């Protein structure tokens, strides 16, 4: 089942990547990033089945980081929306000096 799981993981990752690149809605982009994370998690779990429990522990950490990321990221989105009345990433270019 290992190879199949890895293939699924790759497919999900590609879908996630596509989503990040084609969507303009910051929240959806965010969701797609979560999808990518999940794809990677899947690989971890698949390998973990054969190589030991550490893979699962990594997934555990990834999930916590994802939760933290979601909290902060959503807060940023809220804060930006308050200012620009939009979550369309093409409407703001804050990320430069």
């Amino acid at each position, binding site marked *: 089942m290992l190879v199949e799981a890895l293939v*699924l993981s790759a497919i999900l990752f590609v879908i996630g990547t596509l989503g990040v690149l084609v969507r303009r809605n910051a929240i959806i982009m965010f969701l797609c990033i979560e999808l990518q994370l999940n794809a990677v998690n899947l690989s971890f779990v698949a390998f973990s089945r054969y190589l030991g429990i550490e893979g699962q522990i990594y997934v555990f950490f990834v999930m916590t980081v994802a939760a933290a990321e979601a909290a902060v990221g959503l807060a940023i989105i809220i804060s930006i929306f308050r200012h620009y009345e939009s979550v369309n990433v093409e409407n703001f270019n804050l990320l430069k000096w």
Partner: protein
Amino acid sequence: MADILFFIFAAMAIGGGFGVVLQKNPVGSLLFMVGTLASVAGIYVLLDAHFLAAIQVMVYAGAIMVLFLFVIMLLNLGHDYRDDIKSGLGLFAAFAVTGAIAGLLARQLRGAGDNPLLAHFPGPEGMEQLLAEQGAIGAIARPLFTDYVVAFELTGILLLVALVGAVAIAKRRV
């Protein structure tokens, strides 16, 4: 049986993934995402990661996705946006890059099943034995609170910082 279940879950996950990307309504995307997460949780069970499957459903599909939903609702984004999906050059570039990645991954995975390394791979027996001895939670908890305890505590701090940070950022400016 397991293989059949796997393919069912896999199909659901891929379908959900496309749904996330293609659905114009954010709430729709979100629901597809929940579906994908649940399917992946199913696959986790098949891969003997019962504990992760549980928290995938509870934390990911439950808590985090609800958080997203709250935000969507809060910002009143629950309707279709025509220009949400790129078109033209942007779309082409996105597909080009994604395609390239897909190609590379496919090239890497093609014939992975015949990889001689697999012959040397230990079977799932070790994991099954571990689970049998310590239980789904014990197997993951034991290393987590011994070898990885520092990282574990740091994650706690990270979450706390994220919490404070999120509050600070989202707080309405006085």
